């Protein structure tokens, strides 16, 4: 038992670091993911996470495989792409989802191009799929810092942000600075995607946010309990994902996301608001 569940982490420093990064990530991504789902912005999250790639690639050109450089680049470019696709959908007949899809495909292609011409195949794999086992102290500080910042901001703007999620028009009419809360929230999404990107790569960074959030929706019906469930599921998938990847020598990022997927599948089956329970009479 102990051998299987604990000693890998006791024996290897790099696994302990990875576990810590995962847990920090889980605490921040849990609530942010829930809000993303409630605000019906999963698509925006998707676009942002892909748009991070070319930014990270530029960061990689300048600073090599260091998270702060790639993170900063990703954050900036992600934001530019998100706003550009907003502009496009505003001034053309394209819907927002169409213009997002257009933009993130371009950014994906551009990012892959930059990295594969300037770096090696291994670098590309690292950026696309993450390198949680190579987390160093700097990255660890960055991830935990982002999580702390996220939780503090969320605690401060919790009440108006929820109003903004439920009824944006209402907050605007009563003059409540709705736009600012929405903007702050987008910043938090981008920051957490940047943090998740080291662990899971740009292709799967959103997974740590969305899968636990979607699962939690099947277990709870209050926003605060959704936060708790979502973070808890994210921690679980981080831990078991790392464990699996150690014992079976699977790549760590996909293992973590697959664990989150497994939790989602189980939730669909057994959760109080899951697919099976639903048929026995709602509410």
């Amino acid at each position, binding site marked *: 038992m102990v051998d299987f569940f604990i000693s890998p982490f006791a024996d290897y420093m790099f696994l302990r670091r990875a576990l810590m990064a995962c847990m920090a990530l889980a605490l921040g991504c849990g609530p942010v993911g829930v809000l993303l789902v409630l605000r*019906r912005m999963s698509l925006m999250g998707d676009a942002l996470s892909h748009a991070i790639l070319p930014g990270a690639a530029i960061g990689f050109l300048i600073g090599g495989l260091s998270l702060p450089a790639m993170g900063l680049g990703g954050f900036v470019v992600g934001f530019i792409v998100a706003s550009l696709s*907003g502009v496009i959908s505003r001034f053309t007949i394209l819907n927002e989802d169409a213009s997002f899809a257009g933009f993130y495909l371009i950014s994906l292609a551009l990012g892959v191009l930059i990295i594969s011409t300037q770096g090696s195949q291994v670098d590309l794999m690292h950026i696309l799929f993450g390198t949680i086992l190579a987390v160093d102290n700097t990255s660890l500080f960055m991830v935990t810092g982002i999580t702390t910042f996220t939780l503090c901001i969320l605690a401060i703007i919790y009440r108006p942000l929820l109003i903004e999620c439920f009824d944006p028009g209402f907050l605007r009419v009563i*003059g409540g600075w709705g736009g600012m809360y929405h*903007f702050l929230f987008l910043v938090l999404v981008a920051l957490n995607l940047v943090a998740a990107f080291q662990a899971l790569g740009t292709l799967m960074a959103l997974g740590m946010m969305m899968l636990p959030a979607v699962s939690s929706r099947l277990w709870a019906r209050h926003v605060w309990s959704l936060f708790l469930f979502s973070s808890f599921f994210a921690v679980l998938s981080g831990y078991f994902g790392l464990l699996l990847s150690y014992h079976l020598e699977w790549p760590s990022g996909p293992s973590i996301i697959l664990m989150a997927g497994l939790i989602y599948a189980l939730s669909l089956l057994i959760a109080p608001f899951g697919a099976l329970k639903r048929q026995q009479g709602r509410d």
Partner: protein
Amino acid sequence: MEHASSSFWNIFQKKHKVIHCETGGPPEIEIRDLTVAYPHNTVISGLTCHFNIPSLWAIVGPNGGGKSTLLRTLLGLQKPTTGKVIFRGFCPCDVAYLAQQNQLDRRFPLTVGDTIAMGLFREVGIFRRYTKEQRGKMQAALEQVGLASFAKTPLQALSGGQFQRVLFARLILQDAPVIFLDEPFTGVDTRTIADLMKLVHVWVEEKRLVIAVLHDTALVNEHFPNTLLLARQFYREGATEKVLTKTNIQSMIETSQAWEAMIGEGPHG
């Protein structure tokens, strides 16, 4: 669609500074020669109209006739092309607004209590707790809409009518002198309509101005003393029995058929 993943640019969208506030004179909303045009069509043209406070108004008209655009303009969310909106004796922040129900996600994980508490947001702000007095107000508002024991009920367990009652309770808590209702009774059962109409009459007795966009002319004839009939360039305003006449409704239908025919031919259908 205002909700959904909602345009990123909404975050920069501010209230337009298009509403003029004046003091002095009896409190009212004055609309003076208002024209609102979108790039390919003019939705409101040359509208002049007064809404006194207190009074009860219905806005009636065909789809695309400018009803929602007028409300958005009065809320400061839509910029008029020409003309003026003047709020006399109150400011834009004294307006409470009930959006169309389909703009809200009824499965959002909030309780009835959480939802109506939003009505007090301006009072409590971001951090403060709700005082005992405010909790009392919330309970009273729930009783007024006939949902006294529902404070802890999740929204998703409510019927359409009950959900609308919750939103009316939120309006009660906002305690605003001017209340706009955008199609408040669409998809709501008749008993709820009757109860909520009583509440609307109470609001008017409390010296408020209530303006409701409605489709049901029978309801307007029964309850609303004043009506604004709005079909783009064609409009009539005043006492309901003088506005909702056969001739006026006939001209309204003709005007709307005229522009619908244009839309059919145009490239932007």
